[in-house]
Each structure stands twice: as C-alpha cells, then as structure tokens.
C-alpha cells in the first residue's frame, strides 16, 4: 500500500523467489500469515475487534451515534467508515488528515460492507427525517507489516458481528441488524505470480494488487485494483478463484 524504499538486493531476491513460486517468509502462494481476531477489545465501542495478520495489527471500533438522515433516505441509517494510518504504525506514516492511502483503505472496506448489504441500514432509523443511527466504523492501524486492507476489512466485519445494542429506550431491535460476512482477499502480483496476503516486503516490490470481496455464496460485492502494474483478464479470473477460496477460511474468524 505504502511503497517503501527497498534495497535492490532484497528486491531481486523476492522477485526471484516468486519466479520459483516461493515467498520471503516461506509461505505458500495461497497461504495467509497467522491470523488472530480478538473481539470486544474496547469497552466504550458497541463493537470492536483487534486483528493480527502476522505482525500487522489493526484495531477496529464501531460506535453508534444519532445523526440527521440524508434527505433522500430519511428513514435509513448511515454507514461511515474512517481509517487512520497512525504514525506509530510505520516510519512512513505521518500525522495529519487521512492521505490517499488511508482514504482508499476506508473506501474499499466501506464498499465491501455496503455493497454486500451486510447491515440492514433500513432498520436503523429512529425518527424518519429527523434522527437515524450512524454506524461509525473506525479503523485504527497500529502496526503495518503489509496487507492492511484484508486486516481492516476482517476487523470491521468482526467488530460489526460483535455489536452490543445500545442501552437506550428508543432502540427497538433485538440485536444489531447484520446478516452477511463479506471478506476481502488481496492478491499481489510479483514476477507474473499471484500470491495472497502480501507482507510489507512483498508490497514494496509487487507490480500490482487486486482486492476481491466476496460473500458466503461466492459472489463478488467489491473489487479494487491497486498499484502501478497491470493484470491480464486470465490473472483476474485466477485471482477471483483464489479470493473465493481464501474468504471461506478467513470468514471463520468473524465468529
């Protein structure tokens, strides 16, 4: 995601490994790093999840707040996804408002949730035209060792599935209205090879990446190509098959 300067030796080594179908940390091309998801990490949030993907750590908190609805959807709740690339997470992150990488990260996670219709926003009205629930999904990146998109998307959907209803009178639903489990799988392309879950060293040398978000039935709800390289149509079809298979594995961590 963030391109860091890598020594030519390391670059050549990783690219050459890829040619042999190998990876810098010994994984198979279709293998994720070790995954852990700790839900309800943060008390003041209605839902939260701390995701570790190898050394990458992302904390996602979800809060419900009362807001005015949009004029064109007066009785529908609102989904707001925000991502902060905290300067404590990487020497390349700087304090300040979200840059294009943070914005892309938030928007890719947002589309996965929104387009899968995982949350039934229609049920999150309060007083039509006056007040609805806003679902604030805050992605807090704590340690950046690559593949922030998958870690963040997994954290967001896990946090949403851990939601406690707010303790207020005008909340009428038995539970938070969530029904689907979209999962983002990011595939990097290095030296013509596709590999899932790129670590930072791999991101720094990859030509391009594509993130494919699928739901339980294997259908695609969102995609995003990133990086300055290209894909052939055949590569994209292969990437889809990879994404669909790996999403099933990751989905187990949502709980």
């Amino acid at each position, binding site marked *: 995601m963030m391109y860091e300067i890598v020594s030519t030796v390391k670059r050549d080594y990783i690219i050459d490994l890829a040619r042999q179908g190998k990876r810098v940390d010994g994984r198979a091309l279709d293998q994720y790093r070790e995954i852990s998801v700790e839900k309800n990490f943060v008390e003041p949030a209605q839902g939260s999840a701390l995701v570790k993907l190898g050394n990458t750590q992302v904390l996602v908190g979800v809060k419900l707040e009362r807001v005015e609805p949009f004029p064109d959807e007066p009785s529908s709740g609102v989904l707001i996804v925000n991502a902060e690339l905290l300067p404590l997470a990487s020497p390349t992150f700087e304090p300040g408002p979200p840059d294009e990488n943070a914005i892309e990260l938030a928007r890719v996670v947002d589309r996965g949730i929104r387009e899968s219709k995982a949350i039934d926003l229609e049920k999150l009205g309060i007083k039509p035209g006056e007040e609805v629930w806003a679902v604030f999904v805050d992605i807090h990146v704590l340690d950046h060792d690559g593949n922030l998109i998958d870690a963040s998307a997994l954290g967001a959907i896990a946090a949403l599935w851990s939601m406690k209803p707010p303790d207020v009178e005008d909340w009428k639903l038995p539970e938070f209205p969530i029904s689907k489990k979209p999962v983002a799988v990011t595939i990097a392309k290095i030296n013509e090879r596709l590999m899932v879950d790129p670590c930072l060293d791999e991101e720094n040398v990859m030509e391009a990446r594509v993130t494919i978000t699928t739901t339980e039935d294997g259908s695609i709800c969102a995609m995003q*190509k990133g990086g300055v390289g290209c894909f*052939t149509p055949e590569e994209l*079809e292969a990437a*889809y*098959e990879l994404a669909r298979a790996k999403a099933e594995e990751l989905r187990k961590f949502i709980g």
Partner: protein
Amino acid sequence: MEKPERLIVDGKRLDGRAPDELRPLRIKAGVLKRADGSAYVELGRNKILAAVYGPREMHPRHLQQPDTAVLRCRYNMAPFSVEERKRPGPDRRSVEISKVAREALEPVVFLELYPRAAIDVFIEVLQADAGTRTTGITAAAVALADAGIPMRDLVAAVAVGKVDGTIVLDLTSEEDQWGTTDMPVAIMPRKKLITLLQMDGHFTGEEFRQALSLAFKGCEQIYEAQKQALRERYSVKREEGE
C-alpha cells in the same frame, strides 16, 4: 427521480442503446493553449477536460525521485457539474479517484526517461453523467499523447455493469443509480492489459468474466476514437507548421 419499473425494455435501454453499445463519443485533442497537452471528451452527457503539464521541475523538491519522473494526477468536479452544487476542493471520493486514475495511467508512461521531473495530469469534470472517472482517464491518455510524452500504449477506459440482470456497457447515471453493479475498467488496448479495475454491487464469477470481456470490447471502440483525435490533432499541428 423515481426508480423506473424497468431499465431494459425489449433488449433496449432507456436511451435506446443496445446493452453492448457506447453512448455518443467525441474526442478532441489540443484544446488548451497553456497546457503542454490537453483533450476534451464528451461521452453521452459527460463533458470532461484533461490537461498535462510536464515533464517539468518537481516541487516540492524532496518529492523528486533520482531515477524516475513522478506522475501526479488530480481529478476534480466543477461545482456546477452535478445536480446539487458540489463544494469546491477535494473530497474523499475525488482523492480516491485521483489515485486509481494515476495508477491506471502510470503503466503506459516512460517515466524513467525523466528522472527528478514531475508530470501532472489534471482531469476536470465540467458536466457529469455516470462514468466520469473512466472518461477522465480516456481524456488524460489523449492529453499525455498530445503533450508528446513517450508512451508504451494508450489507455482507454469505460464502465460496465449489471442492470435488470443484464451485463451492459457504459452506464448512464440512471443505470448507475438503479442498477445492481458498476465496474469501471481501464485497458492498455494494444497489450490487452487491465490498468484499472474497481467494482461495487453484485457479480457472480461468470458475470464478472462476461463484464470484463464487454469492457474490452467497449475500450476497443474508445481506442479508435482516441487515435482518430490524435491524428486530427497531428494534421492540424503539421498544417500550422508546429
């Protein structure tokens, strides 16, 4: 506007097009005096201007790259380009589009020829129908060529999607709003490589394959129009003795 009952009737879309048909397309290269290269594209009701400056000195200096030029891209919508006035300045959507547009264009530019330099691409949406990012990329590629910047290929871009269960080419705003799926795609037409891919909505694996193939078909047509615009521009330049 209310959602129409059906968006495709008897195999025809609301504006009379077939599912695999582009909207009327017009491309003109070299429309601005100050810019090093420029292009104006109309696709349906989209009116989009692209300009290129560079290679030029990179400011601020600490962003200079010792072994390559840096491509920068800014996508912007005029306040009056949409129904509800857009506040001037970048928002999250335009920041993301600027990023993916840059990544869509960068593969074709020989940046390594201009170490330390900047090449700036500006995309201005004067009037927006659906497909402004892809139309903007189409315009920007022509503007890059008009600026005389060495390129491996052009980039042609178009959105495909799913409307009433049908895979269609080049969505209108109504189709974007009421349809199921929107997938913007940019392609290097000669090399058959995809440089931009985004998608939101719903596709099965098979639908994705069909849509991708339709995007290639649409981009071929756009590519022909781009080349034609550059030929016309070149002949004008030659007449003018430039």
